[in-house]
């Protein structure tokens, strides 16, 4: 049968404290993590934030440039058309232009410069279309009640909003009035929006970017890519007039986007350029992903490192605590021995005095029984027997108290040169007969190079005698006891081990074998003092004594003594 070796006391304690170790472990982990992760998060977030702010600023700036460029281009286009027509109006008279053949020549010239002119006509002060060149039959129409006519007469120049008119394609009108003497007349030109629509559409960037013109009433003047068509109304708020381009990331008409908005100079039109933030800010998103990945990687490394370090720290702590517990157990044992020693001595002393009286009284009775003529008494034998029994048991008690005193006595050990091997050989010789009689073999494996040490040979002999006697008693019959010695030069320690193949000591009583009065022997056979005396002797000699036992296998006592050499001379 193989039972596990007894668990040392320190070990059991450690298991009980397992939970507090685990708690400490997590405390270290939590503290380290919070101290290292918080800065990591702060750094990661600020890098990301700084990058996104500056990148967004850059995107906004380029959007502003784009918006202004486009607006300038449209403005320039309108300017050119207006100045072309102005030149035409002020270099020719109504008489010249009223002639359709002349007008046709002029129109051809105009179209050479710009394909966007669709037609051109001359209207007199009454609103009559007096001359017309173009693809439609508009001559003779009267415009007196048209809004643009009134406006032109009032302001001298008029640029209309885009309309499809009779002709079903988008165009707008530029009208210029001239007062020529008493005659007032208007040159009216229709201009195709294709060209500036193309200009605006050039700003429709990316998959979802959009660009369009709209009036101050949010009527679309060019067709957007998404969400509306020409002349449709855009669901934006009405913008007041403002200077320069306005660029912001905001929600307009239920759509979150980057907007660049600018008022045109010549016409009350707004150019709106919309960009999808997701497309434009892709580098920011990529940075975000990168930062998150880096932070997560950092977190992983830190967590792993923290766990490793904390584990190592706690493991070291457990080791130290365990060593300390073993040491404590040793200290507890020796202080227990000291306290018990005092107690034992006190008891022995108190018991000795009455024992002395009893002994003397019994001795006196014996004297009397031997001398007086009481032999004739019929109870003589009983008296004699009783007196002898009392004497015997007083003797027994006396042996106990004397051993107790021996256990407690503080006599300084002798300082003499001791050859350990010889002490052991003598002790073994002394027990050989007894062992032989019980068929127990005492083997010795003695280190021939064992150095001599300064110690007390008779006390050592007592220790070996006690342990060997116990071993013989434990085996009973048929067995082997092995006594071996050795020297550990590094620790300067002599070691003696006495191993028997007896029944072993159960782990629950193994911790008590050195306690005084602990015995497994029958009443009257052992005092339970042998091992405790051995313990205090070895301790006084500066050494240690330990026991290891396995039930069914045997018991081993190991004694370690320091090599003392100060008296070699």
């Amino acid at each position: 049968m193989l039972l596990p070796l007894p668990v040392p006391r320190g070990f059991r304690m450690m298991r009980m404290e397992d939970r507090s170790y685990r708690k400490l472990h997590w405390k270290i982990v939590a503290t380290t993590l919070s101290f290292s992760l918080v800065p990591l998060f702060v750094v990661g977030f600020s890098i990301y934030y700084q990058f996104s702010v500056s990148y967004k600023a850059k995107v906004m700036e380029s959007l502003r440039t784009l918006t202004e460029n486009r607006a300038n281009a449209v403005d320039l286009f309108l300017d050119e058309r207006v100045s072309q027509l102005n030149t035409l109006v002020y270099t020719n008279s109504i008489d010249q232009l009223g002639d359709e053949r002349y007008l046709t020549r002029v129109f051809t010239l105009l179209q050479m410069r710009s394909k966007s002119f669709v037609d051109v006509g001359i209207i007199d002060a009454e609103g009559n279309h007096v001359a017309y060149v173009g693809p439609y039959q508009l001559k003779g129409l009267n415009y007196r009640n048209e809004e643009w006519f009134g406006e032109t007469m009032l302001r001298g120049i008029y640029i209309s909003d885009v309309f499809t008119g009779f002709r079903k394609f988008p165009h707008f009108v530029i009208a210029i009035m001239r007062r020529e003497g008493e005659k007032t007349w208007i040159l009216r030109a229709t201009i195709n929006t294709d060209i500036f629509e193309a200009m605006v559409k050039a700003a429709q960037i990316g998959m979802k970017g959009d660009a369009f013109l709209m009036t101050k009433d949010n009527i679309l003047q060019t067709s957007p890519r998404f969400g509306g068509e020409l002349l449709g109304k855009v669901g934006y708020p009405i913008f007041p007039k403002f200077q320069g381009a306005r660029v912001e990331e905001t929600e307009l008409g239920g759509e979150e986007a980057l907007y660049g908005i600018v008022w045109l100079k010549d016409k009350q039109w707004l150019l709106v350029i919309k960009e999808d933030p997701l497309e434009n800010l892709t580098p920011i998103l990529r940075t975000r992903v990168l930062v998150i990945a880096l932070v997560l990687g950092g977190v992983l490394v830190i967590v792993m490192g923290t766990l490793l370090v904390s584990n190592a720290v706690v493991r070291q702590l457990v080791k130290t605590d365990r060593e300390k517990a073993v040491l404590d157990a040793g200290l507890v044992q020796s202080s227990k021995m000291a306290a018990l020693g005092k107690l034992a001595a006190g008891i022995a002393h108190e018991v000795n005095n009455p024992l002395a009286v009893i002994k003397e009284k019994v001795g006196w009775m014996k004297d009397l029984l031997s001398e007086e003529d009481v032999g004739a008494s019929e109870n003589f034998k009983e008296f004699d027997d009783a007196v002898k029994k009392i004497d015997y048991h007083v003797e027994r008690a006396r042996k106990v108290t004397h051993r107790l005193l021996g256990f407690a006595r503080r006599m300084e050990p002798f300082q003499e040169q001791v050859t350990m091997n010889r002490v052991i050989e003598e002790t073994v010789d002394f027990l050989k007969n007894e062992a032989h009689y019980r068929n127990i073999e005492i083997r010795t494996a003695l280190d021939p190079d064992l150095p001599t040490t300064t110690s007390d040979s008779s006390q050592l002999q007592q220790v070996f005698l006690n342990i060997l006697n116990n071993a013989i008693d434990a085996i009973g019959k048929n067995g082997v006891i092995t006594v071996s010695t050795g020297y550990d030069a590094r620790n300067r320690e002599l070691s003696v081990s006495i191993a028997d193949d007896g029944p072993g000591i159960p782990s629950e009583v193994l911790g008590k074998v050195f306690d005084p009065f602990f015995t497994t022997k029958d009443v009257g056979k052992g005092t339970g003092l042998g091992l405790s005396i051995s313990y205090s002797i070895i301790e006084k000699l500066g050494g240690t004594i330990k026991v290891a036992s396995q039930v069914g296998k045997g018991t081993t006592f190991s004694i370690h003594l320091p090599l003392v050499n100060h008296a070699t001379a």
Partner: protein
Amino acid sequence: MEGFRVLVVDDETDFLETIVKRLRKRKVDAVGLTSGVEALKYLEKEHFDVVILDVRMPGLDGIETLKEMKKKRPLMEVIMLTGHASVESGMQGMQLGAFDYVIKPADFDELMEKIRQARERKSIHEEKLRRS
């Protein structure tokens, strides 16, 4: 064995009485006293060959008594009787000139043997003194 005087000093009267009786039974002229002071006073006028002296006594203890006795009667042999935990006191007594010590409860025959040896040593000492 006969014809010599032994003084027993012990505060335990039961013990004292009995041991004196047993000594007398063996034809030893024994006197029992219960304290060191009493013993010293008694020694002013009496002579003894051997003193059996308990170490632990109230008042003047065995060691102190021994010192005084050795001053008064250097040749008188003293056997210390100790029930004390420490054998040291017995050893200390021997350093102060006691002949030997016996741990209580002592075996009576052993004690008798020691008394005889003590008395022999005393005779040898006296012999030497007489010769010189």
